[in-house]
């Protein structure tokens, strides 16, 4: 049986999926029973949503017209970009995070087969996530009158395979163009940009300065109603495939398998070479010289820790790119909020100030997680005689410095236009940043810097509290900027109460860290 023959593709794929499953479970380990309950509740809510959908569409067929065809194609494009974001990231990581690649390449198995299976594993993992999301939503409709909708899963499989192939080609192209040293960071940034592509595209007009913005969906509907929507050739393929028409489904699957096979088989040899080059990149290249080391040593534990944390933040390209991406996501949001609230200048300013404060809180929270929870050598700090409180203060300060740097321009611009608004915004941003930082001090959970994106193991309660407190302070900031400062005390007081509830003593923090 080829499934159980060691070294066969199914056997290797089973190994790959087992590792993926264990990685997924390890990521959820810290969440325990509460995480499981949360997932069950989410699942039930989705099934309930699926039942409502089934009730709504029972006895009706989806019409094949320009509007439905365009919306189905748009949905596919969104799902594909989200999948591509993940597969690109996974493909570039596969080059650097060796895992068992050395073992597999040293075994008498062709590198092409190894890559094929790894790429298949990536496609299967990404596809599974979307399958699991779609199943409860569509299941009731499939059972109750729309068996053809099973085609959606075929379309998802096709999209996952195509995304895995495209992700691999992109990763290898980056590797060839910019070399092993930069590929990892650029691929991560590119993956996040691809993931946010539709969001950014939908906000492009707002960013470019038009007075009103409308979503792509609303735009398509408006054009359909005006009879100006003329989808091109083959655009109807996704909808037809999703509704179970065999030929369109087959066409999509064949195209996807073709792209995947070309990428995986043709790039197999190159992939193994690239993986070896990526591995060697760290040791072969001459280490970077740092001229800053010629200055005098910092005096005392506080300054030394602050300097060390700032150096580590500055030198972590992946971390900086992620922080910049958060800013990238939130800047259009800030603009949208301020513009939609803006038929009056005060309201627009208030909304903008609030978003800046919220954004500051979020970025400070992320950086504080890095400096506090993702310490690389906690034992070194533990064996030193430096008071732990002093070290925490230094780490918190290090998290706030980049936020201050990032806020410098907006606050300076605002000071020129509206000094009082600038004052309140700066105060709000400072308060939100310090509050997020303190939450991270009180609820530290050791993690790795490389896990920054997921903050693996971070307390969900702390993450939620960070958002809530930042939002409350943002609200207070907005209210103050709008000229009702005394009313701003109400959300500020609520934020204060939440912080008091979250506060932990040194002994509690130490106990919490010891028990992990």
């Amino acid at each position, binding site marked *: 049986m080829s499934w159980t023959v060691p070294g066969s593709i199914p056997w290797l794929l089973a190994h790959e999926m087992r590792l993926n499953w264990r990685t997924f479970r390890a990521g959820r380990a810290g969440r325990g029973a509460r995480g499981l309950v949360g997932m069950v509740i989410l699942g039930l809510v989705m099934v309930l949503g699926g039942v409502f959908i089934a009730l709504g569409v029972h006895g009706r067929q989806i019409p094949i017209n320009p509007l439905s065809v365009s919306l189905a194609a748009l949905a596919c494009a969104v799902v594909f970009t989200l999948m591509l974001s993940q597969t690109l990231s996974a493909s570039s990581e596969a080059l650097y995070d060796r895992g068992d690649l050395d073992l597999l390449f040293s075994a008498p198995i062709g590198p092409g087969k190894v890559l094929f299976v790894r790429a298949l594993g990536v496609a299967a993992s990404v596809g599974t996530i979307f399958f699991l999301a779609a199943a409860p939503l569509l299941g009731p409709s499939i059972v109750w009158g729309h068996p053809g909708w099973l085609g959606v899963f075929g379309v998802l499989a096709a999209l996952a395979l195509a995304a895995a192939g495209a992700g691999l080609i992109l990763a290898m192209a980056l590797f060839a163009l910019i070399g092993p040293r930069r590929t990892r960071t650029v691929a991560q940034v590119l993956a996040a940009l691809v993931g946010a592509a539709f969001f950014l595209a939908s906000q492009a007009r707002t960013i470019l300065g038009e007075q009103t913005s409308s979503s792509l969906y609303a735009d398509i509907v408006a054009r359909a109603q005006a009879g100006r929507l003329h989808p091109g050739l083959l655009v109807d393929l996704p909808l037809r495939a999703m509704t179970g028409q065999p030929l369109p489904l087959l066409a999509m699957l064949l195209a996807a398998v073709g792209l995947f096979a070309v990428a995986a088989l043709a790039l197999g040899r190159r992939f193994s070479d690239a993986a070896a080059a990526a591995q060697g990149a*760290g*040791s072969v*290249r*001459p*280490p*970077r*010289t*740092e*001229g*800053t*080391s*010629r200055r*005098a*040593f*910092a*005096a*005392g*534990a*506080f*300054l*030394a*820790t602050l*300097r*060390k944390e700032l*150096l*580590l933040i500055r*030198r*972590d390209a992946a971390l900086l790119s992620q922080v910049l991406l958060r800013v990238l996501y939130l800047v259009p949001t800030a603009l949208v909020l301020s513009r939609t609230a803006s038929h009056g200048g005060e309201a627009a300013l208030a909304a903008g100030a609030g978003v800046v404060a919220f954004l500051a809180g979020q970025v400070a929270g992320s950086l504080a997680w890095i400096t506090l929870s993702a310490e*690389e*050598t906690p*034992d*070194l*700090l*533990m*064996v*030193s*005689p*430096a*008071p732990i409180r002093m070290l925490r203060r230094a780490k918190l300060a290090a998290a706030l410095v980049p936020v201050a740097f990032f806020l410098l321009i907006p606050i300076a611009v605002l000071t020129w236009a509206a000094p009082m608004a600038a004052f309140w915004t700066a105060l709000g941003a400072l308060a939100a940043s310090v509050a997020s930082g303190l939450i991270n001090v009180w609820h530290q959970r050791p993690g790795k810097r490389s896990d920054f994106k997921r903050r693996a193991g971070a307390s969900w309660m702390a993450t939620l509290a960070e958002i809530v407190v930042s939002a409350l302070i943002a609200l207070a900031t907005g209210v103050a900027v709008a000229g009702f400062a005394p009313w701003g005390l109400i959300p500020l007081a609520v934020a204060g109460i939440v912080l008091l509830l979250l506060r932990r003593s040194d002994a509690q923090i130490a106990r919490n860290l*010891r028990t992990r």
Partner: protein
Amino acid sequence: MTEALIVRGLDKTFSKPAVTDLNLTVRAGELYALLGPNGAGKTTTLRMVAGLTKPDRGEISIFGIDARAEPAAAKAITAWAPDEAMIYDKLTPLEYLEFVAGLWNVEPRAAKARADELLAKLGLASEARRRCEGFSRGMKQKVALAGALIHDPRLLILDEPLTGLDAAAARLVKDMLQERVDAGGTVILTTHILEVAERMADRIGIIAGGRLLAEGTLDALRAQVGGEGGEADGSTLEDVFLQLTAEPGGLVEAVA
């Protein structure tokens, strides 16, 4: 002679007992080797001495300072270097030493001079301004050792300091440790390389199952293994070690 380290009645249990009623004494100015098979409790013991792991019970005194009551004072004169170098890949050796000196509150100018001296001594002067990320394991170990020595500790604790070092680097580290002891410093180390302990250690402690089986000079250990009136028969430390650790439950009284 003053005692550098006195441990009395030390207990630590994780899921099972790791260290049980451990007593040991290290004299000032000596090199003490703590030996034992894997899982014997060596690292747990040293982590408790360094203040990294909280004992369930027992006393730890470092140069007369109660390490459990006054941890900061005890840490100020102690250094800990584990087998996995505690360094930052994105920092240069010089930046790393600046950070460590700051933690121990060493005066900046003195720290800079000492850092330059240590890096030169360890053959890392040309790498002082390069990030550690491309360093070999041995180089990282040497950077960590420089970090452990930057504040000139009275008690230096090393867990498997020679792991992963090539012959030249191992010789360099051994020479530095010997120099330190000759200059009056105190060094405690664990090692699986028994020849190193045999050649370098003034006294040796052998631990297994979380208990100290024997403690003393090599001659004293030989005599102990040979039984009462046993003579130093020229057996190696390896023979002694294997004999002591092979006896299940065969606890031996410590010998001076």
